[in-house]
């Protein structure tokens, strides 16, 4: 279930990426946060209690929206532009 709801930019060029191994499509100009949260409703598990988190400030301040790539890189979703072919992974466990 998506968290975010697209109201505009629907007809922009599609950008292919994968999320947890599943092929998805975002839009040119999406941040990684938008691309992921228009597909699902969480980005990561919190470090200690493992509760779901999906960002908060959207401006790179709260540091809540970190997710992983398949290669193990960590990216701050709200401040990273979506690029074609990105292989993204939501953080499924605390401290991973």
């Amino acid at each position, binding site marked *: 279930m998506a968290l975010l709801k697209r109201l505009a930019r629907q007809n922009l060029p599609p950008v292919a990426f994968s999320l947890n191994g599943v092929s998805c499509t975002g839009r040119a100009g999406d941040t990684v946060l938008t691309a992921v949260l228009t597909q699902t409703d969480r980005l990561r598990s919190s470090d200690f209690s493992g509760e779901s988190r999906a960002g908060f400030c959207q401006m790179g301040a709260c540091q809540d929206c970190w997710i992983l790539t398949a290669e193990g890189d960590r990216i701050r979703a709200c401040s990273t532009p979506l690029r074609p072919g990105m292989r993204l992974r939501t953080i499924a466990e605390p401290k*991973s």
Partner: protein
Amino acid sequence: MSQLIDKDVAIIGGGLVGSSAALALRRMGFSVVLLDKGFCGAQASGVNYGGVRRQGRPPEQIPLSQRAHAIWPRLKEIIGIDGEFVRSGHLKLARTEAEMASLEAYAARVAGMGLDLELVGHNQLRERFPWIAGNIVGASLCAGDGHANPRLVSAAFAHAARRAGVDVFEQTAVRHVEKASEGFRLSADRGIDIKARFVINSAGAWAGAFAEFFGEPVPLKKIYPSMVVTEPMGSFMTVNIGAEGGGIYARQVERGNCIVGGMRGEPNADSDFSRPTSTGAVTIMSRAAALFPALRQTYAIRFWSGTEGEMADRNPVIGFSRTTPNLIHAFGFSGAGFQIAPGVGEVLAELVRDGESRTPIQSFAIDRFARTEKNLHPGNIPEPTTRGTSK
């Protein structure tokens, strides 16, 4: 507002040394006042790396270190919290043959002193600690050593001292100390005046002024350790890591953050506060990424620095004053005070009660610098005029 306090012992400096001495003295039945110019445990005691290790100390420190070693597992009973103490082991890496030879020589020097050091070769290292990369020649493991949380431990000793009935005054700098008829008179901030039979100078990096006032200047200077902290990660560092020859030390806390140090910071305009240098911190970060592949994609989320007191010979000053009866010094732990401080506290309490301690501390006498400078013959060394130090 003026307040006159009359106690058996006045302790200047509420870091781990002062606080543990206060607690030990109180439990012996002495009345104690503990003063700190800031928060207890906010200086060296609270900003050091957090290593709780005997390995690497010069042999003269080992008896004191062993005494402290017995205290750490009992923290919960003594101060109410375990201070996140973990007996993880301390693994000291040798990156060159020369460093390995140095580790071997050290192990030989301290053999029989109870450290139970185990020398580990390259292959054993890869097998037992696969998370360490690079061409490490070998290492020395002290399985009984570990690490703890300096911020919590120091403050908790002060808090336990307070609960035990020690008068603790924070944000209260001691401005003046002088001999008085039955001991000493101290005046501190906020109108606090103190009469005490004994004074313990455990004022850390600021202890030099007090020593100098009593005619015993010492080569003490401020140094600034510098740490990098990563975001929390899944547990992988199974030991506290050090390196022969310095350059890097690293540990992982139970919450998952890795703490890495190895460079010095620099003071701010107010030299009681400091900051890691940016180049130093970035250097530590890249050394950590090189040595620990698991950290290569991790982020550093904060740095910290702080003030410690370093003696010219990197050994502390512990023991009676050479000029003034009933004045005891305990400072200058040179960045290696955390592990031994609880032991030092007990020793200081013994000095007050018995005039001597069962743990040898002659090597830390305050007048050793004067002796060295003058290059005196044994016959020329003046006998101590105060109560003797330990056996």
